């Protein structure tokens, strides 16, 4: 009988079925990544008439003394890890909250809680920008009416408040993802384990912390990794809300690289930052995946 797998000794190097993917990714990702490495060692400005020239590590040296680079690194870390941690916590709370609902109640609540997920990032940005308005913004109006603030707050025009304010919008879009994945993971906790724990009279909170959370660990790790990657790449929400301002208070690395490359056309320096970023992110992903031991 012919088997699906040929004998190991005759294993081919590649399967023709993966060739299109390998070829396309080689051109649209492999080549640009290699090209970035080359660009990062060059003085290359698209507006310059003089040709690009090799300057070795000068771009990288400049990077160490560039305060905007460091502040955007810190902003990226706060924006990414802050939003992901808070969204994961809210998502987990919602999953536990809706755990004992079933049938149409669960489906209805789930569909409504998932709604923000289907709102495009740019729309989220403008929607929150509108709600944050100083005059006529609904958030200021409600807070004033409740007496929580005395004067309208300039949420997005204040260097201290702008980053947290953009994070709130970001969290709003991200919670449904965690809620959905953690709900599914929660439903997969073996019933016997819960039974056994309730026979042992485990309290509500010890039940959550000692019985359920360990089962959710992997789901939490994987979903956070996915969201960290997507947040690190998040350009749309920040750009449409603040364009990185006021000053550089909401400038993350993506926004900074975009400005360098497409406002100053300084492709060489922008590429050097890209390379540093690449190393950081791959290091992070490696640590993460090793912890998970994904096959």
């Amino acid at each position: 009988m012919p088997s699906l797998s040929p004998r190991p000794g005759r294993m081919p190097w590649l399967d023709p079925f993966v060739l299109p993917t390998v070829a396309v990714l080689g051109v649209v990702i492999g080549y640009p990544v290699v090209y970035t490495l080359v660009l990062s060692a060059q003085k290359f400005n698209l507006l310059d008439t003089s040709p690009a020239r090799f300057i070795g590590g000068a771009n990288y040296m400049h990077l160490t003394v560039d305060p905007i680079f460091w502040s955007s690194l810190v902003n990226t870390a706060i924006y990414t890890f802050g939003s992901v941690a808070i969204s994961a916590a809210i998502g987990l709370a919602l999953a536990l909250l809706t755990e004992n609902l079933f049938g149409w109640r669960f489906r209805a609540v789930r569909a409504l809680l998932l709604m923000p997920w289907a709102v495009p990032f740019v729309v989220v940005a403008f929607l929150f920008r509108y709600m944050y308005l100083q005059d006529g913004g609904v958030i200021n109006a409600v807070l004033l009416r409740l007496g929580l603030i005395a004067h309208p707050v300039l949420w997005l025009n204040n260097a201290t408040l702008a980053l947290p304010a953009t994070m709130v919008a970001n969290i709003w879009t991200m919670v449904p993802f965690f809620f959905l994945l953690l709900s599914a993971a929660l439903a997969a906790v073996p019933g016997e384990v819960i039974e056994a724990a309730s026979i042992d009279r485990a309290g509500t909170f010890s039940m959550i912390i000692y019985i359920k959370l360990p089962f959710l660990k992997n789901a939490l790790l994987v979903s956070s990794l996915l969201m960290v990657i997507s947040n690190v790449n998040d350009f749309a929400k920040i750009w449409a809300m603040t364009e990185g301002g006021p000053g550089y208070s909401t400038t993350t690395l993506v926004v900074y690289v975009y400005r360098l490359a497409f406002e100053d056309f300084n492709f060489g320096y922008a590429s050097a930052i890209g390379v540093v970023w690449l190393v950081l992110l791959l290091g992070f992903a490696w640590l993460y995946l090793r912890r998970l031991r994904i096959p």
Partner: protein
Amino acid sequence: MTDPMRSRRRSRWLPRAGQTAAIVVALFWSLAPVYWMLATSFKTELEATRLEPTLWPLHPTVANYTELAGKSLPFLAFFLNSVVSCLLTAVIALAIATPAAYALSRGRFLLRGPVSYGILIFRMLPLVVMLAPLYLLLMTAHLLDSTAGLVVGFTTFGLPFAVWMMKSFIDAVPTEIEEAARIDGCGRLQILLKVVLPLVLPGLLTTATFVFMEAWNNLIYPLTFMTSLSKQTLPAALVLSFTGQFKTDWGGMMAASVLTTLPLMVAFFAVQRSIVRGLVAGALAGA
């Protein structure tokens, strides 16, 4: 004794009233902004920026929507540009990714490990790393300011994602059926098209929806690769028009936002059930 699902769900950690209140708060948090967008889109420009916002449009009007078609900006064109480029991306990504996912799931070849890891790493690459070189690549290929160039950009994140997601769906299909088809004399391509694909169709649709959504959400590629306004996608057009037409016209802005949201909502809720299954398969399979 009822089934285990039911008995497990009976465990309760909040009193019923507290739970209901918390759910109401959660629903308010997730729905209020969406309501605000809808309500504002039916308000006049004056009412939308009133110092005391009105909960319900005082003089509901559809002018914001009709003006989208009539004003100086071609919103219908933006809409079509978005639909075409995102659909093309989804179709192309799935067409290339499905055989690869099948090979990575079933095939036995020496570079299987490195190829799988490579695709996973490509998936994790920050977009900014590729921004400048991809721009230069498209410039050399004369693909700047074209739908084709935009689709190339979207493929950089759509394709690796589609391969991994499809692989997790194909992994779940039992191989016995394929063995039977193979004995009947079917070739590999035939098995993939006639036996495996019908079984993973929900997964295929879910993956396509995700690729479509991610492309629809993308702002940085259209903003950098497209130079003429008439070829822009909706998200980029919203950003570009905000500096002009919509500076103070929040009603118009919200109407355009509703238009941008609608296709994503429809796609999302059409496949919502398989999204749940697909995401669980995709994200938990490795765990």
